């Protein structure tokens, strides 16, 4: 039976080093929840605290209303998938998957073990390899076995620690689709750790973006991308250009002024959070090149370009003195040559403004942590 996870005031220390200072999060029943962050941000540490492999220095961990702090990992009824798969090399595929069933508190009959094992071997498409030894399987197949082994015991929660990081790029995309669809079929609460933001976006119901043991934002992939809660999230998720700007009221409407004096009014700023000094986050695709027309927008000089098929990336120097990267859908005509002067327009609905001092977003409708405090 799938359960919700509640973490209150979690603290993790290694010696005197605080890895996670004070973390609160609620993960809904059946949700695919991803912990995303750079390496060393504490995401794996948190996952291992949920699993029971790391001690909990302070705080309370619950599966529904079951207090789990002092439970051994084996008694938490979790399914865990490890980065290196952790397939038992001395057992064949079937025995690996059946291992957990043989260690249940209540004994399961051999017939039932076989039925369950077969069911999950089929679910992850490794049934035909059931009698093989693990070392004759490819990385992707081993990963599937690991998933079957974790799911067959019908755990309350499924924990996955960077499960795809050892696979090549193509297989990674294939496996994440497979994991997502299996998770939906089984309908189990899943906590997934990754440092790959694209992977996180494609697979998750919700993403918690972490850095230095703190959750910066916890929301749906679209919200995290479109309305990042702070500059860290904006720069970590996708690419963005951070520019300086001033925010002033023109009558009642806030007006954003770039360093070169270009002004544009922004409606989506939260009036309560208004400040004068702001940082502007403009994603590369939020700039539009206006090639000929002069006088409107920001003047820029093309410095370099990369053609990537679907899109062309331009590296430009703005007349504000700042550099930026912009993306255009590739044109049938030629790529704009270097040292060409162009004019840029910005998609004002999409850009994000942050308080220059605190780094926090000052936009309306920022979904910071819907289920948190």
């Amino acid at each position, binding site marked *: 039976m799938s359960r919700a996870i509640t973490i209150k005031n979690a603290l993790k220390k290694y010696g005197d080093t605080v890895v996670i200072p004070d973390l609160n999060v609620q993960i809904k029943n059946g949700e695919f929840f991803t912990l995303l962050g750079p390496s060393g941000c504490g995401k794996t540490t948190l996952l291992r605290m949920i699993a*029971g492999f790391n001690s*909990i220095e302070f705080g309370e961990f619950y599966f529904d209303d079951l207090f789990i702090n002092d439970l051994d*990992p084996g008694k938490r009824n979790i399914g865990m998938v*490890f980065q*290196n798969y*952790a*397939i038992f090399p*001395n057992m064949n595929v079937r025995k690996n998957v059946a*291992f957990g069933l043989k*260690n249940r508190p209540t004994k399961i009959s051999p017939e039932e073990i076989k039925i369950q094992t077969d069911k999950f071997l089929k679910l992850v498409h490794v049934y035909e390899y059931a009698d093989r030894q693990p070392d004759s399987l490819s990385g992707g197949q081993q990963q599937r076995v690991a998933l079957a082994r974790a799911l067959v015991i019908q755990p309350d929660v499924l924990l996955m620690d960077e499960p795809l990081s050892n696979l090549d790029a193509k297989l990674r995309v294939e496996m994440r689709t497979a994991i997502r669809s299996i998770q939906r079929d089984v309908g189990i609460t899943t906590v997934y750790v990754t440092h790959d933001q694209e992977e996180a976006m494609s697979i998750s119901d919700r993403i918690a973006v972490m850095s230095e043991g703190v959750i910066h934002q916890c929301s749906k992939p679209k919200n995290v991308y479109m309305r990042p809660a702070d500059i860290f999230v904006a720069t970590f998720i996708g690419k963005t250009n951070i520019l300086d700007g001033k925010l002033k009221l023109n009558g009642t409407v806030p007006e954003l002024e770039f360093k070169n004096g270009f002004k544009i009014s922004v409606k989506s700023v939260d009036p309560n959070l208004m400040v004068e000094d702001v940082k502007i986050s403009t994603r590369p695709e939020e700039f539009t090149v206006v090639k000929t027309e002069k006088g409107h927008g920001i003047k820029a000089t093309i410095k370099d370009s990369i053609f990537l098929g679907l899109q062309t990336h331009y590296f430009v120097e703005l007349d504000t003195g700042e550099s930026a990267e912009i993306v255009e859908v590739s044109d049938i005509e030629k790529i704009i040559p270097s040292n060409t002067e162009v004019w840029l327009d910005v998609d004002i609905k999409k850009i994000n403004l942050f308080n220059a001092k605190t780094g926090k977003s000052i936009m309306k409708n920022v979904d910071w942590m819907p289920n948190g405090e």
Partner: protein
Amino acid sequence: MKKRKKLDFWNYSSWIILALFGLFLILPLGGLLKEAIYTKDTGFTIASFQKFFSRSYYYNTIGHSLKIAIVVTIVSLGLGIPFAYFYSFYNLKGRKFLFVMCLLCTMSAPFIGAYAWILLMGNNGLVTNFLKLLNIKNITIYGFGGIVMVQSLKLFPLIVIYMNGAFRDIDSSLIEAASSMGCKGPKFFFKVLLSLTMPTILAGSLLVFMRSFADFGTPLLIGRGYSTFPVLIFNEYLGENGVDYHFAAAIALIAVAITGIIFLIQKIATSKFKFTMSALHPFDIKEPKGISGMLMHIFCYGVVSISMLPQIYVIYMSFRKYNSSILLPGYSLINYVKAFEKNLIRATSNTLIISFVTVAIIIVISVFIAYLVVRRSNVISQTIDTISMLPYIMPGAVIGIALVLVYSKQPFCIAGTLVIMIVALTIRRLPFTSRATTATMMKISPSIEEAALSLGSSKLKAFVQITVPMMKSGIISGAILSWVSIITEMSSGVILYNNRTITLTIGTYVAINNGIYGVAAAFATITTLMTIICLVVYLKFTKIEDVTM
């Protein structure tokens, strides 16, 4: 919330292991120390040490032993490094055979080589007599030169095994990078290959040095006036002119101090070359061509043949006709018949019992140590790890004396039983096997065990069902190596044995001592046979490239 300290299975086992070490290693060492500096009559005294350093007859033995060990190490490197280079980089004819012969040389009982060389080059030896015909005299196996030759021929394969492993860890890109920068020939060999393998060269040198320094059988048999340290310990302990336990204990302590210092020097030297390599793309093995190829073959086969010669000659001699110590023409099984009368059966069964029991104990303890050190690193497990390395610097004779001092008195009177032999051998071999199991353990990712735990398995069950099977190949190869060295062990046994607890090696030694050379050859042949069986079993479980000592 307070941290709770749970007393689990591993805590208990670490205390038990610590207690065993205390009882069988620390206590005897303490006894040794007490014996050396304390007598009933005079109380605390350093008289024994004064005695040692007052007479050149005594203190010269340190010089002798050091000189031998240094020269043997240099000669072994001189033989072993080129051998390993040819073996690793060139596809020599019968590569596998060469390597297996190397293993056999180094696994064979230390003094059987010495004994065979007596038969070949002793006063009435085959080679000596042949040289006499050519009017070449004064070539003898006895003394410094003989000891160096016998030990080097036995120990150089260790360098070959170590260096082969190190060469294989050199990535081909490093070699290509060197040659792309124009580094070739001898410069390439010394500046690139040898400096890349320096940590291994140092580790191998230490091993050879320690074995040579602690070797007891070779100098005892062919030293003649050239007395070495282990021989001195033995003589003072079982001396004909009255036993002086205090003095023997003092010498034993000096021996530990010297090996300890050498161990530390090596540690410091190694720390200067602290890097590790592992090859993603091993280099290609070249075909040996032309004159250089021929010379390589001559060198490798020459060295191996000379090393194997004594072994083969002993087997041959065991089938010759003897009348007690007089060699008669013709062949017979008389030596084996005589050997049966001289406890061959008892010696063989004792050897088997001792080796099996010891290996079993060593396996269990070393697996536990490996687990505790790698997975439960804390003060107790670190202490266990350090203590378990102590015997590494203790010559066998020292362990033997220390055990006798403590365990020949009540309440633990186990001297003169198989138990004390098992204890001595366990202590001697444990560091080697526990090093091997610890290395194997480190390669096992902790997440494998965590996977088992997350699936509801208990800690003990995860260890027995998952971890131990994964360590299997490492454990087996470590165990067989221990088994061989237990079968061929001599130095601690010779102090602890009596007529009831005689083993094959000691049987050989006793027969040589009594001048019945044919019987000695029969004992030695049986020992060699058992060594070969071990080697065959070992190679069944270990790929030839992965051999470690």
